[in-house]
């Protein structure tokens, strides 16, 4: 059997290597080329058709605006990033705790779970003005909206993740007189990690949405505020520049969760 493995391993690596060249071309070069082509068409058609910048600025104009307004964009990106991370962190803490409670207490599961599901049917953006009413127009309400939107995937992934531990392994733990705390940290939690990371990736994208919605409504600062404010003044290039920064912020934050997943799953994967 181990001989089989020895024969199979280098073959698999070789296969992967040969495959990777084609994969890189198809999965990296091709989409980049497509994007560049689309941007070129955009640029050229704006020049030819002569759209007004207030309607559709050319990509080059957007980049130029982004550079000239870099201070404004950076100053407003910082609160957006900080509040998103805050909303995400609160979601992980509260969603995780609620998930653990629902997993471990039948009373909590029976009384709370149907209500949590029902709560989810409310279009969450529609509730945002309530938070302004309760918490004012400061960062508190933006954080609350972000938490409100982003915590649900964490609850679901915690509940389903904590239930994935192999029943036979749980029986082994029983036979070893393992305590509930030991079973939680040594078996259930590691088994739930793939679920938790999936939940966290979704939650991170939702946390950004929550903060932007909050910024739209509170109109104090942040990229959402810039988008709304510049839009009302027909400064479309700034709107698009802010959107581009928002894309980068989203990619980086999502990438951080994915990176953490890669590092941790290297230890706790199979």
């Amino acid at each position, binding site marked *: *059997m181990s001989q089989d493995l020895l024969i199979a391993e280098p073959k698999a690596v070789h296969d992967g290597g040969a495959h990777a060249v084609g994969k890189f071309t198809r999965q990296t070069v091709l989409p980049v080329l497509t994007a560049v082509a689309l941007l070129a068409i955009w640029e050229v058609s704006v020049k030819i058709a002569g759209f007004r910048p207030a309607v559709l600025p050319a990509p080059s104009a957007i980049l130029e605006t982004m550079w000239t307004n870099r201070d404004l964009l950076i100053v407003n990106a910082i609160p957006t990033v900080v509040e998103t991370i805050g909303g995400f962190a609160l979601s992980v803490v509260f969603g995780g705790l609620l998930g653990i409670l629902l997993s471990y207490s039948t009373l909590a599961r029976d009384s709370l779970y149907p209500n949590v599901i029902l709560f989810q049917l409310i279009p969450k953006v529609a509730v945002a003005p309530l938070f302004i009413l309760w918490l004012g127009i400061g960062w508190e309400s933006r954080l609350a909206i972000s938490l409100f939107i982003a915590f649900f995937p964490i609850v679901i992934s915690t509940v389903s993740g904590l239930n994935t531990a192999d029943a036979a*392994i749980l029986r082994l733990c029983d036979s070893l007189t393992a305590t509930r705390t030991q079973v939680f940290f040594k078996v259930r939690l590691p088994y739930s990690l793939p679920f938790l990371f999936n939940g966290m990736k979704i939650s991170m994208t939702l946390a950004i949405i929550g903060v932007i919605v909050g910024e739209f409504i509170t109109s104090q600062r942040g990229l959402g505020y810039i988008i709304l404010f510049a839009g009302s003044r027909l400064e479309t290039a700034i709107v698009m520049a802010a959107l581009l920064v928002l894309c980068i912020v989203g990619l980086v934050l999502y990438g951080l969760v994915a990176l953490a997943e890669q590092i941790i799953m290297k230890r706790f994967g199979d």
Partner: protein
Amino acid sequence: MSASSAKPDYAFVRLTNVGKSFRIESGAIEVLRNVSIDVADRQFISILGPSGCGKSTLLMMLAGLEPVSSGAIEIAGQAMRAPRRDVGVIFQDPTLLPWKSAIENVLFPIEIFGLPFAKYQARAEALLELVGIPEARHRRPRQLSGGMRQRVAICRALIHEPKLLLMDEPFSALDAITRDELNVTLLDIWERYHQTAFFVTHSIREAVFLSDRVVVVGLGKWCWMSQSHSRARATWVSARAATLIISVVNYAERSPRITPAASRTDAIA
């Protein structure tokens, strides 16, 4: 009926009129009734029977994982009500944690018991050596064959030096060749450590090869036979179970017990 058995002077494991029934919607299903077995210290006993006869349930009760419905189980003079730390269990599946290497899995009971790792590290390595997979020490379960995984599970059941070893059809998921190899390995280990061992199986071959004593469960009856090396002698209480026992005896006489050390062929290592 009760399984009649000669009572040893000192029974390490004593089952007295053990019964088990499971409640279902329309009443209860009785799985075991009045099972009485005394097992002397350091005996290897097999519980042999077809599937569904309650032999695995009996083993789970011995492990303290299932409560008895009636009767009592005593281990070393103490009533068995919950799992004990001086018992090692090998399940049908290897039940290894996928993110732990072979040696980390072997040390898992030590981790749970909160015992010093350093003290058991060498024992874990020695056990892996004994079952013939020292080179697989740092591999994760995914990188091990089925037989290798079950070998790791054997080491894990032995790491904390249990006085009683319980095995629930541990090799039933393996192919015949691996299974025979593991039987030899198991006997090797048992002859070195000599724990009291319960081995549940539906294979007559396995039961005869491994055991000092075989308890045959068949057709709703329990009876037992003992076996001493190449000569088997059986005592039975049920005429209906006799057929099964006779086949066991015949088998035993045709296949004298192999000396494990001499016959050891470890193709995996």
